């Protein structure tokens, strides 16, 4: 490097953060502190705790996590998440399309607001809502009984099927919120171009719209999967320990209902985090693809 370029580099205003730039970083400080205190440090403690065994540091806790009961809990959680994510994408996609294509702006805004509320309505209140509507003495159950339709004993809200229905309640609106921007990005002219080139409506959907939406739908599916996989309060309130899910197992180990084993709980939690991290990374990769397509 010559002296001249060194001088230029030293004086280059792009190399020195401006006062405004430093102030911007200061503005981010609360967020950084929050992330450190409530996200990074807990994860680091989780990692540390999951690696601590009676014999010192090691992978023993992860080995203990691979018992038939725990593997079954993982399998149940994955199955429930896959089913409810698929139902969310299937039905939610149709509802989202209906919302974006409705001519009434008022209906559009009302349904989007409803989706916003219901997507965030989960946990114990949602479970109670389902108990008082579809429980054995729920309002809907009794109303149906009055007109000669007996839901019970063929159906139980306290079963895996009932739990799946409760999960779909928040999965479907979440999908709507995630996919509406992608649907709005479908240009009217793409459909018209396909039509002018001889494509039927089905051919347009199969050859144009769905391939364009695929990354967004798949990414949303992964996010819904992670959302269901990590759900605990709804499952616990609705079914208690009856359904063997990984989140229920982790809670039981932390609370010491059968045995107190926080280290094993941490190992299970870390494995769950890994699964969800893969889903979230997949979501970001796929939405990045959507943005590149749209650019």
């Amino acid at each position, binding site marked *: 490097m010559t002296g001249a370029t060194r001088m230029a580099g030293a004086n280059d205003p792009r190399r020195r953060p401006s006062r405004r730039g430093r102030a911007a970083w200061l503005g981010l400080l609360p967020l950084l502190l929050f992330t450190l205190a409530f996200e990074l440090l807990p994860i680091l403690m989780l990692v540390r705790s999951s690696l601590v065994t009676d014999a010192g540091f090691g992978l023993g806790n992860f080995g203990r996590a691979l018992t038939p009961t725990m593997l079954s809990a993982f399998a149940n959680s994955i199955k429930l998440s896959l089913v409810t994510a698929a139902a969310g994408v299937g039905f939610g996609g149709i509802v989202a399309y209906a919302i974006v294509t409705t001519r009434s702006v008022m209906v559009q805004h009302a349904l989007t607001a409803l989706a916003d509320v219901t997507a965030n309505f989960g946990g114990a209140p949602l479970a109670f809502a389902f108990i008082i509507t579809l429980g054995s003495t729920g309002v809907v159950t009794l109303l149906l009984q009055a007109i000669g339709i007996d839901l019970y004993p063929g159906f139980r809200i306290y079963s895996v099927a009932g739990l799946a229905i409760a999960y779909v309640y928040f999965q479907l609106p979440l999908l709507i919120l995630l996919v509406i921007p992608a649907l709005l990005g479908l*240009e009217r*002219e*793409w459909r*018209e*171009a*396909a*039509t*002018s*080139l*001889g*494509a*039927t409506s089905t*051919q347009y959907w199969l*050859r*144009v719209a769905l*391939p*364009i939406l695929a990354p967004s739908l798949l990414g949303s599916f992964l996010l819904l999967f992670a959302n269901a996989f990590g759900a605990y309060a709804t499952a616990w309130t609705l079914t208690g320990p009856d359904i063997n899910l990984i989140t229920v197992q982790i809670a039981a180990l932390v609370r010491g209902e059968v045995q107190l084993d926080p280290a094993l709980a941490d190992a299970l939690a870390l494995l769950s985090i890994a699964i969800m991290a893969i889903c979230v990374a997949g979501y970001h990769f796929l939405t990045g693809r959507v943005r*590149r*397509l*749209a*650019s």
Partner: protein
Amino acid sequence: MAHVELEDLHKSFAGKPAVRGFHLGIEQGEFVSLLGPSGCGKTTTLRIIAGFETPDSGAVRIGAENLLDIAPHRRGMGVVFQNYALFPHLTAWNNIAFGMRIAGRPAARIRDRVPELLALVGLQDAGRKYPRELSGGQQQRIALARALAIEPRMLLLDEPLSALDAVVRVALRDEIRRIQTTLGVTTLYVTHDQEEALAISDRIVVMREGRIEQIGTAEVIYAEPASRFVAGFIGKMNQLQGRVDEPNLGRVRCGAHSLLVPPEALAGLRPGAPVTVLVRPEAIGVGPADAPAREGGNHLPARIDAITFLGAARRLGLDAGGQRMVADISTASGPYRRGESVTLAFPADACRILAGDEPAPA
């Protein structure tokens, strides 16, 4: 009978008429432009032909067939959109091949045809590129190739150059015309750019508020506007309000000036009838204030109050005894200064007459 017949098309949106009583015949291989300001119904007309809109009444015929009875995807219309509308997940090659694949053309035929079309639009090496990797002009060329790939019965172009910069617009405009002439495909071209329409079309249809104002070749539309709207919309036009003075001698009084116009242009008009005298700026000669008047022409004293450089010409803004006028002169002539007194000269046969005194739109 014309190759394509548009018969008495009407279309309203929410009670507001967009197209009213539209009649047009287009010959095989003809290049017709629909020209008009925003909201005049030109795009709606094109969309009716394509099948994207259904008219309230009327017919669109090709031969004995009424296209309105045929589903849009079976009409065989090649459409080029303003925003290109290329499928973003497909390469240029696959965009062009799309229609042929839908039609079930053999793979070998598609393999032969796509390179031909890429060559036709001058993008032989762009087949593997995605739309996002192409410039606006290149995307529009691919969109044109895609529309031509289905060997359309008619090519419909909806403001295809509006999103492009001026240089690309002119180049692609000429390219579109070259390709259209080569293939002989009947073409309907929608634009609000009068220069574009004048340069590219066999015939121009000037539209206003859903109706046709005038149909004609570029020369006719420019030289003989049939209405004040056309006169004001196509190019720059001086509009002098006046009254018929001596119709047999071709004399019209415009304020303090007595203008000579072709006597036949005043046929049927009585003395005192209100008229608008139309004169193109380039038909007006500008000379010194003391220039001698020539027999049989018009000579108006005027004062220059604006000078605009247009490149090949200078446009002078003039006050001719209270009449606002403009004259385009060669950049070589002059020099002229603002405030300078000059004489405007133009022959009688440079004047067009429109009866009535409604001013033409600016």
